[in-house]
């Protein structure tokens, strides 16, 4: 997913540690939400929601409506600012490649978002949501169930999910370190070559 360059959301940013918006950004977002709240219900209906996401992202209709159904956790056919804020944080986390950190920091709300029917379990049927919302790949999902399904029911409860987020975060940090080390080595190599010359 890519946010449309120059759009309002494109200018917002998450705090890299806590993956939340600053107060100033939230204030701007509140005003933006109220601009879209045409019917003065403090909510966006499905049509407004669809056109908003269609304008700022490259998601197709099916993806947008599945996100709407996921966020409409009260099943009222509209989403309020709480859900809108969460959506914006998810979008910005994807845009800025902070998915692992976001899921780690906010594992409970993410789990509640992904689990259906109030069973407090995430099954394979939710896997498509992980992919396009949090950029989790197929092999990672398989690893996910293989390594963390401790009970063995092919579904993850919250504790198993939390373990997954911790391991994913560790893996992400190791990857970052390795990349940083590679860059440093490259720079050293280039410097040594230039000295030789």
């Amino acid at each position, binding site marked *: 997913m890519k946010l449309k360059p120059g*759009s*309002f959301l494109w*200018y917002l940013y998450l705090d890299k540690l806590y993956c*939340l918006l600053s107060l100033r950004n*939230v*204030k*701007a977002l*509140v*005003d*933006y*939400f*109220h*601009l*879209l709240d*045409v*019917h003065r219900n*403090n909510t966006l209906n499905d*049509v*407004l929601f*669809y*056109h*908003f996401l*269609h*304008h700022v992202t490259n998601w197709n209709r099916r993806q947008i409506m599945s996100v709407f159904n996921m966020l409409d956790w009260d099943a009222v056919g509209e989403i309020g*600012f*709480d*859900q809108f*804020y*969460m959506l914006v*944080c998810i979008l910005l986390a994807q845009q800025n490649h902070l998915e692992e950190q976001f899921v780690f920091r*906010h594992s*409970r*709300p993410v789990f509640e978002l992904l689990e259906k029917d109030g069973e407090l379990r995430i099954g394979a049927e939710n896997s498509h949501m992980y992919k396009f919302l949090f950029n989790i790949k197929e092999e990672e999902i398989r690893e996910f169930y293989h390594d963390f399904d401790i009970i063995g029911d092919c579904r993850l409860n919250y504790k198993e999910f939390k373990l997954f987020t911790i391991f994913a975060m560790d893996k992400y940090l190791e990857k970052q370190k390795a990349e940083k080390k590679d860059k440093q080595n490259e720079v050293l190599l280039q410097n040594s070559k230039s000295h030789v010359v």
Partner: protein
Amino acid sequence: MEEKPFKALAKSSGHHDSVKPSSKSDIRNLWTMATLSQPKVNVQLTHVYEDSEQESSSVSSGTGHWYNQEKAGPDSDSDRVWEEWSDTDKKASIKQGELDDYTSLELKQRAGSSLRSDSEGVEDPKTKMVSSSISSPRILKHTPHRAYWVEQQNRLPLPLIELMESEALEILTKALQSYRSGIGKDHFLTKQLQRYIEGLKRRRNKRQHVSVH
């Protein structure tokens, strides 16, 4: 956003539709009156600080020095002075009334007269300060644009509001087409959306007209 969803403000402060066009509260007046008077400030600046009654907002200190209006003493509502502001942790906000007093004071200076306004309760020392014509080139160089300062305290910057409104307009125009095809053009929701879009366009045009002139 940990255990419970984030509980944001239920109501926005409504800045985009609650600014009343009175001379005291309308930021546009500051832009017209204060802007031109900035280079001609000849008032002595002393060190005073005052807390605002409005909701506190942190100053975005930026990289330069910021100045703040402060009261010289408890008796004078209209003792307005500027001080050098260090760009770190101080919080400051300015009462709208104070700014208007200062703005009117500047206008008097521009007219070239050192007036004493009984209605504002300006005291002799202040008049003396006004007429002393002491100006510091360093302070003048770093004096912030007052209207911009007020804007930063109370509302979103105008360029950001314009961006938001333009984008909202594009989104809502497409939504209107969906409404018309989905529920018909005579449905009350369609008409409500249409009226809203027209209102938004009018507000935007008005703002653009003001900024041009």
